[in-house]
């Protein structure tokens, strides 16, 4: 974990209303592990106090990149960033994904910015696997070329049917899981809305597979100090305890998450 005033190397608009922001930071690029995130100070904080968390999308050649969508005041203010601007960044933060177990076929399931959050994992996996991407429409499906370039098979579902299967991401996932010829054993890696993560956890349990889910919680400090981002999980002794999404997470073993207590 470091704090750094990183120079913006560039920013570009991507499909689906997303922005790709590149920061020059050899240190962060060297430290970044799949599933970790950056805690970014807004460029003109004015009356906003808190940093904003973003998954590390890519980390290479002395740069770290995030892929974000302007949804509120903070992210909107970030869209004005240009090469040469300076941004205070804390990172890499959190406990990321473990490396996919050797000899196991990795299955990714992603919604929203989850596709970005899973890219580093896909890139570092011992072998390519299958990636399921879901969204409301074609515009919400990100990074397909990037995953395909890594040799992954990408299977898409959109609720309006504008790309891939019509329906939720679980529709093609369930079909794939019930195919007798599918690879085995498998291991899940998922990032997206809580409902999706829970659905993946159920599929994993049914399939007797391990699943790792990356959770999205609004954050304060990002480093474990404020106890804003807590999530109920089961300790090894079975007791429900708080885990800090920013510190013990954002990635949890799906079986340890206490799903009932998620609003």
């Amino acid at each position, binding site marked *: *974990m*470091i*704090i750094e005033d990183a120079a913006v190397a560039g920013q570009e608009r991507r499909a689906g209303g997303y922005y790709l922001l590149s920061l020059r930071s050899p240190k962060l690029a060297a430290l970044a592990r799949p599933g970790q995130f950056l805690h970014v*100070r807004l460029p003109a*904080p004015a*009356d*906003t*106090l*808190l*940093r904003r968390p973003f998954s590390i999308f890519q980390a290479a050649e002395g740069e770290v990149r995030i892929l974000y969508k302007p949804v509120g005041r903070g992210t909107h203010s970030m869209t004005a960033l240009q090469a040469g601007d300076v941004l*205070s960044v*804390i990172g890499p933060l959190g406990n990321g994904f473990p490396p996919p177990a050797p000899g196991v076929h990795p299955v990714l399931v992603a919604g929203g910015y989850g596709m970005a959050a899973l890219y580093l994992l896909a890139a570092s996996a011992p072998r390519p696997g299958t990636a399921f991407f879901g969204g409301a429409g074609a515009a919400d499906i990100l990074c397909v070329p990037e995953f395909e370039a890594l040799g992954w098979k990408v299977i898409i579902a959109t609720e309006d049917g504008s790309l891939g299967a019509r329906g939720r991401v679980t529709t093609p996932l369930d079909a794939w899981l019930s195919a007798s010829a599918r690879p085995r054993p498998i291991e899940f890696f998922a990032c997206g809305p809580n409902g999706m993560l829970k659905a993946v956890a159920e599929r994993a349990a049914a399939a007797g597979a391990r699943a790792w889910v990356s959770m999205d*919680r*609004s954050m*304060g*400090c*990002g*480093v*474990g*100090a*404020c*106890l*804003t*981002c*807590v*999530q109920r999980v089961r300790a090894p002794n079975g007791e429900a305890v*708080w885990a800090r999404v920013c*510190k013990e997470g954002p990635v949890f073993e799906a079986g340890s998450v206490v799903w009932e*207590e998620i*609003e």
Partner: protein
Amino acid sequence: MKSKTSPSRVEPANVDLSVRLGPLTLRNPVLTASGTFGYGPEYAELVDLEQLGAIVVKGICLKPTRGNPTPRTYEVASGLLNAIGLQNPGVDGFIRDYLPFLRKFSTPVIVNIWGHTIEEYAEVARRFSGVEGIAALEINVSCPNIKEGSKLFGTDLDAFRRVLDACRAATRLPLIPKLAPNVADIGAFARAAEDAGADAISLINSVPGMAVDIETRRPRLANITGGLTGPAIRPIAVKLVWEAARATRLPIIGMGGIMEAAHAAEFLIVGATAVAVGTASFAEPRTAARVVEGLRDYLARHGLASVRALIGTLQR
């Protein structure tokens, strides 16, 4: 820029930043505010803990405590609402899991304590007595979730006195009651603290507040109400510290919305002996260390060789 008030310049390196909080001597007057800096290790990779005047850890009660459901914080204009609900590992958990780490530093550790009852307050104070590595206890009476009957310890003068008396009888550690802002007469609480044998007081705790999501019509915090902190409350805090300083001779730790050295100077000028940085650490973890350096420069520029020469010097 040269100040009118003092022509001679002092070298920043020669400025004496040390202050005394009752029996405690601090190398500088800049503390971390309870609940905003964890228990020490959380920020240690980013901040040199040796640069701090003291570390005030998050509130501890007798037993491990679950705190409130989520959402627990919500950002508002120039401020933050929080209702963490005092989640903590309890006295034993703190001593076991965090104190050994904190003992590695020369920075004094002040433990913020609370209890569900007066007896629990006293018991927590007793349990920390004689534990190595604890410099003082800050007594959090201003938590909106804990009360005796219908009386809140932080806003009812009698309940406040009884908590302090019980803690005073339970320990010889320096005691620093932390005052609630939502009272009509802060001076009365400051005097009551002095009468009860407190060694210093700290203020302000967060200001009760609330926000609503108008689309769902649900409160933004699971606990419905929370405490407002950050720059929004700074004028309120400065005013209460000024008032408290005129009511008591106890040293005061001032806090509320300090983001930079200039804000800390405001608190010192109205009478605080030390300050604490809270919410600002979330935005910029090195705020407290920067405030130390900024104060040093400010004092040098004003020809003040010691920070003590700034305390309580409001001009009229």
